[in-house]
């Protein structure tokens, strides 16, 4: 399935993918991050049981230095 992650299209060779599995695939496990799916926040507690669908738009963000 194809997902758009942080503005970039990415292909995943699977038909089913949860947010938790996506985080693993992107080697982001253990990192402090927040995820928005199609404009709605996916709470961390829901990562494991949120199934992604082809065409989903995801924003994955973290905290960086700033004023």
């Amino acid at each position, binding site marked *: 399935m194809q997902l758009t992650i942080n503005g970039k299209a990415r292909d995943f060779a699977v038909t089913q993918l949860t947010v938790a599995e996506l985080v693993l695939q992107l080697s982001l496990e253990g990192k402090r*991050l927040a995820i928005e799916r199609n404009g709605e926040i996916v709470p961390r507690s829901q990562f494991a049981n949120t199934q992604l669908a082809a065409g989903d738009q995801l924003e994955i963000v973290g905290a960086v230095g*700033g004023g």
Partner: protein
Amino acid sequence: MSDLLNIAGKSYQSRLLVGTGKYQDFKQTRAAIDASGAEIVTVAIRRTNIGQTAGEPSLLDFLPPDQFTYLPNTAGCYSADDAVRTLRLARELLDGHTLVKLEVLGDPNTLYPNMIETIAAAKVLVKDGFDVMVYCSDDPIMAKQLEDIGCCAVMPLASLIGSGMGILNPWNLQIIIANANIPVLVDAGVGTASDAAIAMELGCQGVLMNTAIAAARDPIQMAGAMKKAVEAGREAYLAGRMAKKLYSASPSSPTTGLIS
């Protein structure tokens, strides 16, 4: 000294709030923040790098959220919608943390705030349970409206973000401070220690800065200077300055007992 800064029901010893951007590396960021004595530090929310080295350090490793109060900002947002989205992500990122810095910019050259969008975002965020510290123009009417909406602090600019031009309109700041029932902090424009001291002498509850420290030749030394300036300015404000006079017929030394 029990003169504490109170924001959204929490007390802080330090009245200096600092940003975490523009430093050479995280080590320098941490050293400067330690030297500043700041307890509240701003952070930006940005897209995570994907496909980068998995073990690369993050800002949070150097500034553990249990040791500092994070103030996630909306830097770079030009609409109320983007600012609200960003802070909802920040709240999720920081485990339900509600204290935030709202800033909605109006122009990429000056980074001057767009107050119409700022007010629209503030209304949504306050309703959504956020404690909103808001970057704003030094317009007393805007500051009052933000207070009426329910923001927990107003943070008028001293001068433009990153300019280091100091306090350009102390008179407006004084009007904002005189009318406010919530903390007023100067955010943006401080260039050096005297600017921070002046802000505090005017009666500001605190000062927020980033570039003045990060862009100094020696950021860590400047962080220490800013700490002292904020403390000195606060004490001078509390002490109550002498009245200004064009001249005085009252010398400090006795007028009698002079040799003749």
